[in-house]
């Protein structure tokens, strides 16, 4: 079995479990976007659109693209947190897997590939719902999927690298409370970051979800008004997210090796 195929055995084990649990994930994949688009897009959007703003598009389209990146972040971060803690500490499946020909980096890569599959599935569902809500046309909705998946993967790998160094779940809820949720709110998901004070704009530039949100908007809605996005090149966002993913994979493999093979 080669280095290339080993991680797919981990994907296969996830699929075996998924065969039974997929219904639950489908429901949550539907419910989440429906609720957000209804509340933020339709509800809040009707007020926003009635005002004199310079979004150059309906608020529903603006927020739908932001939410795709933000939802991918939450899903990716969640996937890097609890299942990984279960693997190293609660149920210890990872400890078992490394007594077979698999190694720690196969587990990390396999979970990464599995993340690609799951995030893609989830975001396609999101895109379909955004179309049904009239938030996006089919073309832009589907164009939004790949950059959102990339955003989710950056978080999945980085959070995995964090989780495997942690002893208890408190640090995971802390990460979500003080990391993921503030990012969700202040990365341009719901309003352009040009609305933020200058200092916070610079903070936003440094954080990952901002780059994900911008990337999704610039790819899905290229006609977007200059005031709704920053002037940064698409490649800056791509580079940020790809480097974060690469670093995440590298550190996650290294930390998992130290954790599982003391």
């Amino acid at each position, binding site marked *: 079995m080669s280095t290339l195929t080993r991680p797919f055995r981990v994907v*296969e084990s996830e699929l*075996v479990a998924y065969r039974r*649990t997929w219904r639950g994930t489908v429901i949550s994949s539907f419910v989440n976007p429906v609720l957000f688009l209804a509340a933020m897009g339709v509800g809040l959007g009707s007020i926003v659109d009635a005002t004199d703003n310079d979004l150059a598009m309906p608020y529903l389209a603006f927020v739908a693209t932001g939410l795709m990146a933000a939802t991918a972040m939450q899903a990716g971060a969640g996937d890097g947190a609890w299942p990984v803690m279960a693997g190293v500490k609660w149920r*210890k*499946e990872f400890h078992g897997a490394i*007594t*077979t*020909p698999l190694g720690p980096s196969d587990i990390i890569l396999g979970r990464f590939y599995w993340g690609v599959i799951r995030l893609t599935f989830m975001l396609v569902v999101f895109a379909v719902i955004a179309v049904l809500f009239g938030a996006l046309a089919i073309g832009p909705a589907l164009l939004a999927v790949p950059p959102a998946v990339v955003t989710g993967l950056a978080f999945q790998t980085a959070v995995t690298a964090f989780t495997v160094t942690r002893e208890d779940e408190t640090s995971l809820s802390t990460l979500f409370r003080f990391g993921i949720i503030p990012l969700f709110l202040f990365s341009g998901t719901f309003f352009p970051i040009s609305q933020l004070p200058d200092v916070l704009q610079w903070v936003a530039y440094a954080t990952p979800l901002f780059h994900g949100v911008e990337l999704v908007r610039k790819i899905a809605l290229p006609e977007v008004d200059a005031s709704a996005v920053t002037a940064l090149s698409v490649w800056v966002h791509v580079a940020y997210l790809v480097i974060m993913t690469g670093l995440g994979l590298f550190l996650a493999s290294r930390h998992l090796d130290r954790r599982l*093979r003391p």
Partner: protein
Amino acid sequence: MAEPLVQARGLTKRFGDFLAVDAVDFDIAKGEAFGFLGPNGAGKTSTMKMITTVSPITEGKLSVFGFDPATEGREIRKRLGVVPQEDNLDVELTVAENLYVYGRYHDMDRARIRQRTEELLEFAQLADRAKSKVEPLSGGMKRRLIIARALINEPELVILDEPTTGLDPQARHLLWDRLYRLKREGATLIITTHYMDEAEQLCDRLVVMDKGKIVAEGSPRQLISQHAPREVVELRFADGAIDDIALRLEDVANRSEVLADRVILYTDDAEATQHELTARDIHPEQVLVRRSTLEDVFLRLTGRSLID
């Protein structure tokens, strides 16, 4: 003698300042059931983890199937079945799926896994549970499933780390019965345990570990004859009488041990010892005569103090 399956020379494991395994030597031959006996913290599990290549060795030499764990770990793990101390079954999967996933980890094709799963669930007496979830299984069933999972790849060497800890007597005996069968079929087994009866039942040869060192080696019978006289006489006395009596017990047996409420005499001839007691006018409230067991050897070698 054929090349040993596992060979360790000066094998050492250190975690920071803590010396977990202190320069141990051992050889394990093909087809043998080899035991590591010792109290908690003696270094048994650390030794197992080095053999299964999931813990790098600090110093010394270790070869498994002639491979070096540091560079050829995957070659070793291919041929290995590992039963860990703690359950690490995937509780989201069914009984059969747990075997399937490990079969795939071992690069087996689906048809072979299906066939092997059938055989192994039969062997582990779980055939009627194939489609059941793991969570509701009893402790004994989970252990048997873990053993079945370890056998999926037809391993040349099976490593069992405290396989029956926490099981009730029925479940333990059933598990021993399965392990006997494995042994009869020619598997090489490495077993760690702190249960003496388990070691006596299953192991052809064993080492006793204490504080990271091997303190004795041999077959269960050899160890008993080397480290404990043939018989044991346990005497129970009324409260407070023991200190006075202890002084008068000198030389009544090969060795004596005075505990809070009783005295243990190790002797080659229990009858003669009892006569001697009567001659010295010592009359215990209760006398128990029994044969020496591995437990006596164990306590002799590793001490009576509680290790946490």
